[in-house]
């Protein structure tokens, strides 16, 4: 199981029956593959659709039916399509129960940065700033480090996406919950020790020695 699958599987366990969920482009999209048995969730794509899965059957792609990453999707019975203002009314208005996003950095206070490395690469915020402002729960799904550098830092060096604290950080090493007291280690990945997590984290971690092992959902 690679890092991305660990992350996607663990995030999927945060899903609850009946939720409306927005998955960001890239890694978060994988979460859809691991929806736990017996629960039913609806996915929203911010380009204007609720109720889809991917990919569509080969040869059945429709040029007017894609997700927010531009990939072809299949609408499901009971799907609803709408324009961008309505889509963000859903997002900003708190109608999305959970948003899963990638991040470049998350800091000790729980703020994330994910849309610009000033002077280097600025893809833009897309829907991220609205999702972080409006979704009921915001989960960061990201690898613990990038090129050996911790992505969880004491203070952001990149511009924050929102002033809001995210609900949970899930990496291939740990589940970390931002709180008033700081970042709390909630779970460690199978076979990963607390010391290793602390060493790979650039911010102070409230790390109980007996942090339980991450469940990953069994198939």
């Amino acid at each position, binding site marked *: 199981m690679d890092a991305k699958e660990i992350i996607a599987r663990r995030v999927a366990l945060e899903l609850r029956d009946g939720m409306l969920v927005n998955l960001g482009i890239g890694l978060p999209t994988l979460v859809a593959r691991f929806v736990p048995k017996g629960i039913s969730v609806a996915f929203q794509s911010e380009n204007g659709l609720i109720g889809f899965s991917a990919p569509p059957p080969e040869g059945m792609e429709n040029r007017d039916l894609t997700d927010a990453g531009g990939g072809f999707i299949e609408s499901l019975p009971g799907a609803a*399509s709408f324009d961008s203002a309505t889509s963000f009314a859903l997002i900003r208005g708190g109608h999305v129960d959970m948003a899963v996003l990638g991040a470049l950095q998350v800091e000790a206070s729980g703020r994330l940065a994910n849309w610009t490395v000033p002077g280097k690469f600025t893809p833009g915020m897309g829907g991220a700033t609205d999702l972080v402002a409006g979704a009921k729960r915001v989960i960061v799904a990201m690898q613990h480090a990038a090129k050996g550098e911790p992505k969880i830092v004491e203070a952001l060096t990149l511009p924050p996406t929102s002033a809001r604290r995210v609900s949970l950080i899930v990496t291939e090493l740990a589940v970390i919950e931002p709180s008033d007291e700081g970042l709390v280690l909630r779970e460690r990945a199978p076979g990963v020790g607390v010391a290793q997590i602390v060493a790979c984290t650039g911010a102070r971690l409230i790390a109980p020695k007996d942090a339980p092992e991450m469940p990953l959902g069994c198939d």
Partner: protein
Amino acid sequence: MRKSAITAEAAAALVFDGASVMVGGFLGVGSPDRLIDALVSRKARGLTIIGNDTAYPTVGVGRLIEAGCVARVRASHIGTNPTTQRLMNGGAIEVELIPQGTLAERIRAGGAGLGGVLTPTGVGTIVAQGKQTVEIDGAIYLIEKRLRADFALLRAHEADYCGNLTYRLTAANFNPLMAFAADCVIAEPDEIVPSGVIPPDSVRTPGVLVTHLVGRAR
């Protein structure tokens, strides 16, 4: 995500006395008549009704007024209902009149996570009293605050098992806006059809917004 339908009576029991309740409809057209009947039957009291108007004494929201269910009204027009006028003048009902377009935008803002809207409507009139104004590129706008409610009672044309709604002609009016702006959204459709019968592009209110569907009378 499939929903199951409840009766109008069960829905009316959820709407507690003193609640703020958005009710769709325009002079009764597009109002949820069975829900209104059930509220009258259960003798609801002290409701704050938010809607375009109070229709006529025997029609739509007017029946809630007539039955003594209503303590407060926020609407754009009450001229078609002499009872509302009389109760307002006598102090038995508090009425806040709001320009119709402003009412629509305030409800939309409430559902869309916006703090409010900046509108030219009402600037320089008594509608502006007590409200902040902002100048943007040389023009003056009123800050009109978001509006939300405990409940939204909608009438729809079709609903599917997922709660997706369609409306018909001028019966849509405030219903699609209110679907976003209440903690509990109860929709009374003319018909319920299986998921997949309403094409995605025909859905006007995504089912995720609908808390309860009122099923056909049994």
